[in-house]
């Protein structure tokens, strides 16, 4: 893409609802997937000849497969409660980024072809034919939705624009009009095992390097095992954790926590990716295929538990869908939920007093916490509703003396997306990412100015990558975003030595 030539929103004291500015981001379109990226997913390589007919057929098929789609397309009353809730609308002012207007791009076609009123009185109910112009609008604006579900919190019928976006992307994929970023990545998972295309030996090298670094820093031999059979726990983590900052500091933290817990654990080169981009493109089949890699890895390695690293949409697929897609998990230890989040794991240890944490090690920071959208509104942690808000905060507070929350209407279930979720974390959508981050940046600015916050912690690989890139646009430093387990890693006092590592795991493997 050409160099970024767009206005960066100026941060105010609070987010003002912008006036409708028609067409403000109509020019934004991510790269279209070429045939080489479509084929591995089972999609046509280019826009098929009878795409109109095929798209309507696909829509009909999806209506029969997803109650959400049918109910959501029928139930909207255009009350407007969602219109000022999307971070992309707030940041771009483009009315088609209002959730209801985004849904209407699909709904008006649904009405035209599937409803009595739309067939006979299209003008009256705002129904339109599926023209090339409409299709291009779909491509543009259904790739300006991060599937964060904020709109669904405020809708009186719970209409979730994420479901509509997923269906629209599935329709577009089926007629050969897919998005390069998502589809290329899914292809890499099928071929190599993770989004970044890191082969097993590259991961192995990285992990060996980490072991040396941690040993140099602490004098303790913390292990970061890969493909080690017979372990208690399989850790599935986003592949960004293997090399990106601050992700990798989180991975170091997970290893230290497992070390202190005295449990045996391993990563898997086959399941070296927690994220599941199959969800972003609304493809049940692809999402299932990706999930099954985790099942296969768990069976091959003979683990008893599965723990997920810090990753937002991944945790949605893991928590909400994994049992459906790749279960039943009856071969795992029934005493633990499948899967568990690393924050749940660490939180349990903290509650049991099994971790020694020196909070003063993080005294150079005043930390706030960004609730990642899909963790907040599409999953849970612990055994009570809202645990996904409490547990990460308790983990942070156990490792830090100085913790501050951002304003209440920007956290918890009302949290703002980072601006890069749902398959939009690509450079060709930089303008959208910067503008979409505005509401979160505004909230951050508030606590930076009023409460001297220095760092924002997150538990999502996309959030971390997005903020690293976007923070500087707003006058912050890129390293002000940190991993939650990075804070744990800083504070944890390693009390165990590797020689006695196997006393609790009890399995056959000795140290190498």
């Amino acid at each position, binding site marked *: 893409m050409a160099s970024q030539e767009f206005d960066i929103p100026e941060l105010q004291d609070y987010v003002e609802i912008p006036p409708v500015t028609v067409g403000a981001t109509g020019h934004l379109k991510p790269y279209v997937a070429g045939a080489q990226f479509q084929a591995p997913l089972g999609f046509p390589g280019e826009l098929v000849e009878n795409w109109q007919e095929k798209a309507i057929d696909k829509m009909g098929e999806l209506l029969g497969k997803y*109650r959400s789609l049918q109910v959501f397309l029928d139930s909207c009353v255009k009350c*407007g409660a969602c219109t000022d809730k999307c971070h992309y609308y707030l940041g771009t002012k483009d009315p088609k980024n209002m959730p209801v207007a985004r849904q209407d791009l699909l709904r008006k076609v649904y009405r035209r072809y599937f409803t009595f009123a739309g067939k006979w009185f299209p003008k009256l109910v705002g129904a339109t034919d599926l023209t090339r112009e409409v299709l291009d609008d779909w491509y543009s604006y259904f790739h300006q939705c991060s599937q964060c579900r904020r709109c669904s*919190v405020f809708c009186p019928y719970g209409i979730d624009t994420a479901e509509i976006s997923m269906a629209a992307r599935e329709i577009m994929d089926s007629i050969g009009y897919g998005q390069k970023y998502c589809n290329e990545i899914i292809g890499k998972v099928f071929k190599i095992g993770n989004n970044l295309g890191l082969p097993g030996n590259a991961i192995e090298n990285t992990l060996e390097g980490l072991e040396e670094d941690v040993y140099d820093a602490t004098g303790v031999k913390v292990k970061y095992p890969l493909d080690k059979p017979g372990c208690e726990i399989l850790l599935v983590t986003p592949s960004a954790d293997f090399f990106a900052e601050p992700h990798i500091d989180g991975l170091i933290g997970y290893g230290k926590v497992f070390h202190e817990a005295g449990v045996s654990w391993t990563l898997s080169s086959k399941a070296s990716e927690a994220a599941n981009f199959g969800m972003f493109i609304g493809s*049940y089949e692809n999402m299932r295929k990706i999930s099954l890699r985790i099942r296969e890895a768990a069976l091959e390695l003979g683990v008893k538990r599965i723990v997920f690293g810090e990753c937002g949409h991944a945790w949605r697929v893991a928590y909400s869908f994994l049992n459906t897609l790749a*279960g039943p998990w009856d071969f795992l230890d029934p005493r633990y939920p499948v899967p568990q989040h690393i924050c749940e794991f660490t939180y349990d240890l903290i509650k049991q007093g099994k971790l020694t944490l020196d909070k003063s090690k993080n005294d150079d920071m005043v930390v706030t916490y960004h609730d990642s959208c899909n963790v907040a509104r599409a999953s849970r942690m612990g055994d009570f509703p809202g645990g996904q808000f409490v547990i990460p905060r308790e983990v942070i507070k156990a490792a830090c003396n100085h913790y501050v929350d951002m304003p209440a209407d920007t956290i918890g279930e009302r949290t703002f997306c980072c601006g890069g979720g749902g398959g939009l974390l690509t450079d060709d959508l930089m303008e959208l990412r910067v503008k979409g981050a505005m509401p979160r940046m505004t909230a951050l600015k508030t606590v930076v100015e009023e409460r001297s916050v220095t760092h924002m912690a997150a538990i999502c690989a996309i959030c971390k990558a997005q903020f690293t890139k976007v923070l500087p646009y707003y006058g912050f430093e890129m390293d002000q975003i940190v991993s939650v387990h990075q804070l744990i890693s800083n504070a944890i006092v390693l009390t165990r030595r590797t020689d006695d590592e196997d006393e609790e795991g009890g399995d056959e493997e000795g140290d190498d």
Partner: protein
Amino acid sequence: MSFLTIAYAALFYAATAIMVAGLVYRVYLFASSPAPLKIPTTPAPMSKAGVGLRLFREVVFFESLFKGNKWTWIFGYAFHFGLFLVLLRHLRYFIEPVPTPIVLIQPIGKYAAFAMIAGLAGLWARRFLVDRVRYISAPSDHLLLLLLILIGVSGVAMSFVFHTDVVAVKAFFLGLMTFDLRPLPGDAALLVHLFLVAVLMIIFPYSKLLHSVGVFFSPTRNQPDDPRERRHIAAWAKKLEQS
């Protein structure tokens, strides 16, 4: 029997048939389409009882809308609650003898109509005054509000200005229910009121009024948050496992 009576009787039989058949079909469609994935908007209740309570709060208090927009909530609530009381009041035209609670509610229902109309007016004003809501409004959104306001205004007019022979009206509707036609009074306000109500009934299953049943089938609201505890799988997805 006058032509008017026969025409209105036919109209109401047709309207009722269309509304019932349309709604039954739509409910069947909602109920029979599978929900392959667990997608409650969290935090969500973990039990079915909790889900019942969540839906109750949604339907009775408009909980999510309250979070979303206070003006829309106020106007929407005034309209819906007003309508609810007005409908209760109207039961007297369909039940003989009239149950005591319905008798007691008559004076309240009479004035609830004003709350209903005020709420509708507020909702309509938003469609002009708020640029975002203006942008998303189709002609049908305006016309539906107009229709409801006219129903309300013609009803209020009969209560307070152009009184009609309510005893005869009741006889007409009781007669409809037992297929024994009785004459309908020919007052203009009454005829307008009844005609518009019939129109509303006819478009009910083909319009956004479906939100009234849709809310109960919305997976983000009616699913308990228990995916780790219970395996949830749709029939079509199960087939993928067998291939």
